[in-house]
């Protein structure tokens, strides 16, 4: 939801805190679950992720989440799906050139990042998204990666 999305950017520091404290535990839990149940829970977990992140960030389930590196503003809401924005078309009032009623996703991102502890992560380059990941869960991807924090 657009209004919730704006709130998320405003409270980026708070959400970052929650993410940092809860995320390792969730990933460990998911890792355990995927070991026990294999792929049978994938659909459920993916739907849960899509619902939660969809509500908070208008998440598009690109499968390669950058929220912690883009000020809690989802770059896939940019009409050009820029992963290293903003572009040069931003309106003087900070709104999107393509959707004049939407705040530029990357104006929001830099704003959100300015309040985050690890906001400087926005300065690192994010290569274009792997389109094969579309619709897939980032949580599961991270949970199945080797060298998970805490192991």
């Amino acid at each position, binding site marked *: 939801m657009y209004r919730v999305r704006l709130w998320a950017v405003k409270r980026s520091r708070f959400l970052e805190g929650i993410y940092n404290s809860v995320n390792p535990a969730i990933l460990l839990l998911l890792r355990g679950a995927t070991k026990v149940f294999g792929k049978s829970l994938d659909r459920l977990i993916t739907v849960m992720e899509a619902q939660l992140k969809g509500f908070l960030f208008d998440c598009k389930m690109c499968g390669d989440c950058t929220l912690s590196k883009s000020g809690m503003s989802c770059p896939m809401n940019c009409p*050009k799906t820029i992963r290293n*924005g903003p*572009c*040069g*078309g*931003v309106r*003087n009032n900070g709104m999107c050139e393509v959707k004049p009623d939407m705040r530029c996703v990357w104006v929001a991102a*830099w704003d959100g990042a300015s309040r985050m502890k690890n906001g400087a992560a926005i300065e690192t*380059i994010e290569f*274009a998204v792997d389109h094969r990941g579309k619709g897939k869960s980032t949580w599961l991807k991270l949970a199945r990666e080797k060298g998970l924090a805490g192991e």
Partner: protein
Amino acid sequence: MSSTKHKTDPAEMLPRLPGHVSQGRFEQVLRAGHFAVTTEIAPPDSADPAEVLKRATMFDGYVDGINATDGSGGHCHMSSLAVCAILTKAGYSPIIQFSCRDRNRIAMQGDALGAAALGVANVLCLTGDDVSAGDHPEAKPVFDLDSISLLQTLRVMRDESRFLSGRKLDTPPLLFMGASINPFVPPLENRAEQLAKKIAAGAEFIQSQYCFDLDILKRFMARAVDMGLTEKCFILIGVGVLPSARTAKWMRANVPGVHIPDAIVKRLQGAAKPQAEGRAICVEMMQKIKEIQGVSGIHVMAYRQEKWVGSIVKKSGILADRKPWAPTQ
């Protein structure tokens, strides 16, 4: 493999000097420390190559590079690659514009090889305008890469001699790589960081959006100098020629990313000859921009006013007594 039976060089390339990435004249001018001038050619709505050359000849002796726009504003024209091929063959030093709007990473890597093979030495990496801005709003926007990913891609091809996939290239494309910046629109306070990202991704020269606001530019450039960015790339600042107050108002309302302060509009409104005033504003801008620390050149964008580019450059005196090389001289 080169064949001796066929003529394979469409353009005469210069020897690559030490510390240079390309064999082009534009890079040589900048690295020699000259204040450079580039301009934009409007690709014709035509399949006639003579039309391209006719438009380029207007700039002879006044510019070091000619940008060939790539479906600018989402409008169809002759492709940038074809315009550049025609220009290189005639001896010009074109800058090919690569917009991510219309092609995915497979097409763009192919075009990078093709452009270099045709003698193009410079590329400007752009994300591009959205299709909704143009005359084919029903088209599918691609945006597989963004400008920064494109810079990284081309750098991998040039410096590591491979595709993104890892597959080896027999001959890498020796392209001098550029990117655009727009310091005049939000988020103003992060535009220097955005520039830093583009440089980190591989940008070696920069061409900016229209500058009609010197105060913003000065603040931006001071920041760029502080961050050491002007040591790492050549920054050319864009200037424009406004024919009337009406056009100025229309542009700032309808062209994405164009910031024109009220003072400029008022000046045009109050002028007896607005067209001449627009050119005078451009000349003044160029002179003042040249004085700003860290600026390496000017990029003149004079859409539908191309015939004035030469006289504006001349009047500004920014080239001093240097005369850029042109094939007709």
